[in-house]
C-alpha cells in the first residue's frame, strides 16, 4: 500500500513538473545559416623566400573549387588579423580566437617550399569553433603540379566537411573542332590545361572514362565507319573495340569493374543495345525492338541501364535490367527526351529534353517520379554527365553562341563555362578522381 502511494506521488509530481516546465520539444526545422564562413589564407614560404605566385595560384584554385561547391562563404582577406601572417600550423600555434572574432568557422592555412622546379605544399584545414585540425596534407611534385595539388586539397576539404570526397582532381574529356576536325580533348575540371588526345582528322564522338579512369572509349570515323575505340590515356595507345558494319556508338564502361561496354550496334539493320567485352566480343544482346535504342547509361551497380528508345514513336528514356526483365519507360512528359546519365549514387537520372525548340537538362528518379528541371534560359543544354561525387553536372551549352562545356551543381545552380572559346566543345565526360 505504501508502495502504491509512493508511486502515485511520483506519477503526480512528474505530471506537475512536465506541465509547469517545458513540455513540448523544441523543433528547429532549418538551419539559420546555410553557408560555412571559411578563411583561405595565403600560403607562406616555409624555407627561404620563394616567389609568392605559386602560393597565390594554389590559393585561387582552392577558392574557386570551394566556391563552386556552394558550401562556403569567404571571409574577406582584408579583415584577416595577425594570425594569417604567421606560419604556425600546429593546432596549438593557431590563434583560433582571432578567427572566431571574424566569424570564421573553417580555416585554410599552409606553407610551401619551392626549390628550383621542386614544390612541396603543406595545407591544413582547421575547425575554428573546436580549435582542431580537420585535415592536413603534404604534396610534393613539380612546380607545374600546383593546380593539381590545389584540386586535391579542395577534395580533402570537402571530405572533411561533408564526409564525401570531392571530384576536383579529375579530368573532363570532350570533343572540340578547333582544328577543323572533331577530335578528342581532355582538360582539368576548371577548364585549365586543355590537351588534344587524338589526331584522327575525321570525326570523333562520345567519350567515356573507364571506372578506373585511365582509359577512354570513344567512337571515331577514322576508317570511314563509326567504330568504337578505346585509348589508354597516359600512353595514348588506341585499339579498335567494335568495328561492325553500321554504327558502333555511345560505348559506356560497365561499373564497377569496367571489363564490359554497353553500346549501340546496327549490324543487323536496326539500332539495338549490346554488351560487349573490352576485347570486342558480344556477351549479350539487350534489346531487339523495331525502334532505335541508343545512349546507354549504367546504374552505378552495373545492374541496370537507362537508354533512349523511339519505339513508342518519339524518343523517351527507358530503364532495363541487364539480367533480364522488362524495359520500363520512365519519362512520361515531353516528346523528346534523350541522353540519360545515371547519377553515381543511383538516385537520379539526368537527361536533356527538347521542348519549344530548345534542349534543357532535367533529372528524374529511376522509377520515373520526381522530375525536376535544372536549366533555363537561352541556348541548348545537352549531354549531361555527372561528376563522380554526384555534386555536379557537366554538359554542353550554346548559351553564348558556340557550343561550350559548362558545369553546374546537381540542383542546377552555379553554372559556369569551363571550356575555352576556341572552336565548339561538346560531349563532355567527367573522369573518376585522377
Amino acid at each position, binding site marked *: 500500500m505504501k508502495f502504491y502511494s509512493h508511486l502515485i506521488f511520483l506519477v503526480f509530481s512528474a505530471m506537475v513538473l512536465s506541465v509547469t*516546465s*517545458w513540455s*513540448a*520539444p*523544441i*523543433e*528547429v*526545422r*532549418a*538551419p*539559420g*545559416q*546555410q*553557408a*560555412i564562413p571559411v578563411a583561405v589564407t595565403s600560403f607562406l614560404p616555409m624555407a627561404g623566400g620563394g616567389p609568392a605566385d605559386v602560393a597565390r595560384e594554389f590559393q585561387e584554385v582552392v577558392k574557386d573549387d570551394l566556391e563552386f*561547391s*556552394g*558550401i*562556403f*562563404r569567404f571571409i574577406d582577406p582584408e579583415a584577416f588579423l595577425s594570425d594569417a601572417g604567421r606560419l604556425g600550423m600546429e593546432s596549438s600555434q593557431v590563434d583560433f580566437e582571432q578567427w572566431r572574432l571574424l*566569424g570564421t*568557422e573553417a580555416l585554410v592555412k599552409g606553407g610551401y617550399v619551392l626549390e628550383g622546379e621542386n614544390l612541396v605544399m603543406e595545407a591544413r584545414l582547421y575547425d575554428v*569553433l*573546436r580549435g582542431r585540425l580537420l585535415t592536413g596534407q603534404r604534396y610534393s611534385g613539380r612546380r607545374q603540379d600546383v593546380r593539381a595539388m590545389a584540386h586535391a586539397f579542395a577534395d580533402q576539404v570537402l571530405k572533411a*566537411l*561533408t*564526409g*564525401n570526397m570531392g571530384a576536383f582532381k579529375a579530368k573532363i574529356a570532350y570533343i572540340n573542332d578547333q582544328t577543323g576536325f572533331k577530335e578528342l580533348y581532355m582538360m582539368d575540371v576548371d577548364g585549365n590545361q586543355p590537351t588534344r588526345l587524338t589526331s584522327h582528322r575525321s570525326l570523333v564522338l562520345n567519350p567515356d572514362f573507364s571506372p578506373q579512369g585511365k582509359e577512354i572509349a570513344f567512337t571515331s570515323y577514322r576508317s570511314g565507319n563509326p567504330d568504337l575505340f578505346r585509348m589508354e590515356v597516359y600512353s595514348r595507345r588506341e585499339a579498335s573495340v567494335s568495328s561492325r558494319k553500321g554504327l558502333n556508338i555511345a560505348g559506356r564502361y560497365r561499373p564497377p569493374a569496367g571489363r564490359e561496354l554497353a553500346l549501340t550496334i546496327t549490324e543487323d539493320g536496326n539500332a539495338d543495345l549490346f554488351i560487349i567485352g573490352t576485347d570486342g566480343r558480344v556477351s549479350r544482346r539487350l534489346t531487339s525492338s523495331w525502334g532505335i535504342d541508343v545512349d546507354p547509361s549504367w546504374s552505378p551497380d552495373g545492374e541496370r541501364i537507362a537508354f533512349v528508345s523511339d519505339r513508342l514513336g518519339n524518343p523517351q528514356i527507358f530503364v532495363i535490367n541487364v539480367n533480364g526483365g522488362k524495359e520500363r519507360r520512365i519519362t512520361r512528359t515531353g516528346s523528346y527526351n534523350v541522353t540519360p546519365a545515371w547519377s553515381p*549514387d543511383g538516385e537520379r537520372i539526368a537527361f536533356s529534353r527538347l521542348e519549344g525548340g530548345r534542349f534543357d537538362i532535367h533529372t528524374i528518379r529511376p522509377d520515373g*517520379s*520526381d522530375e525536376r528541371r535544372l536549366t533555363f534560359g537561352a541556348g541548348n543544354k545537352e549531354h549531361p554527365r555527372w561528376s563522380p561525387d*554526384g*555534386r555536379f553536372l557537366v554538359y554542353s551549352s550554346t548559351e553564348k553562341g558556340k557550343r561550350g562545356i559548362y558545369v553546374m*551543381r546537381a*540542383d542546377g545552380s552555379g553554372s559556369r563555362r569551363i571550356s575555352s572559346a576556341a572552336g565548339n566543345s561538346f560531349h563532355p565526360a567527367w573522369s573518376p578522381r585522377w
Partner: protein
Amino acid sequence: MSIGIEESPMPGGRLLHPLMQARSDSGMGRMLFLSVAAHLLVALLFSGWFVPQAKREERPVYYVDLISRPVANPQAGRPDGGGGGKAQGNPPAEKGVAPAQSPPARNETAPLPEKVSKKAETVALPTKAEVKPGLKSEAKGKPEAKPEAKAKTDPKPEIKPDVKAQAAAKSTEQGYQQVLSAVAALQKKRESEQQKEEIASLQERIAEMSRRRGDGAGNGGGGTGGAAVAGGSGVDAPLGMPDGTGNEAGVSSSLWLQTFFRSNWRLSKYQVSRADLETVIRIAYDADGNLLRKEIVKSSGDRIFDQSVEDAVLKSRKLPMPLPAPFEGEVIFNLRDLQQ
C-alpha cells in the same frame, strides 16, 4: 453510404466499383463493412502511403528578435515585438545581440504580414523566403525585393523611394524620419482596423530601414537594428505571444530558444545528401543561461549533420538572456523547412 466513394478523386473509387455492385444482394452488415473498408482505403490513399511526395504539413512559424526577453507568462502580442519593444519595458538591447544572427534577423521582416489584427498573430513566413540566407549576401544589393502588400493603402506615397535600392543612406535617413512622423500622425487618430493595418505595415518598413541603417556597412551586426526599432514605441501589438495569457512583456521561452538555436545552427544543404535527417539533442541550461549538459538522444546517422547540431549548441554555451526558469529538454533539429 456510397457518397464518399463516388466522389473520391482517387483511383480507389474506380477500383471499388465492382465491389459496390455486390452490395445490393447482401445484408446491412456487409454493406457497412464495405463502407468502412472503402473509407479506410480512401484514408489510406490520402495518408501518403501511396503518394511518396505527400504534401508537407503547414504550420505557423514564429521567429523572435533575440533581444526580446524569454519570460514564463508572456502577454498577448507579437513575438517579434511589433516595434513596441521599448514601450513594453524591454531595455537590454545592447546586451545580447549575437553578431552572427544577421541573416535570420533580416528575414523576419522581409515578407509583410498580410493582416495585422489587434492580436497580430502573423509573423508566419512563407518558407521560401527563409530558406535562402546563403544567397543573402549576393542579393543584398537590391533590398527593394520586399513584397509590397500594403502598397494599395499606403497613405504616404512620398516615402516610397526609400525602399528602392538606389536610395542613398541620407534619403533613407530622411525617409526614416518621415515614416516616424507618419506613424505618430496615424497613431493620433487610429480608430479603424484599416489604420491599424497601415501602422503595422509602416512599422515593418521602419524595422526594415533601421536594419538597413544598422548594417549598411556589410555583414556585421545586423541584429542591432532591433534597438532602433524600439524608437517607434507606443503602438499596438505589444511584445508577447499570439496565444499569450500572462502579463509579462516577452516571448515564451521555448519560442525564444527555438529562434536562438536556429540562428546558431549552420549547415549547408550541400553538406548532406539527404533531406530527411533528424537529430534530437537533450540540453540543460540553468536560469542564468549557462549550458549545463548536452547529449544526443537520437542520432541522424549522418556524422556531419550531428556535428552541426552539436556545434550549434556549443556556440550557445551561454545564452544572451537569462531564462525565467532552468531549462532541460529535447531539441529536434531537422531540415523540414529546407527546400530541396
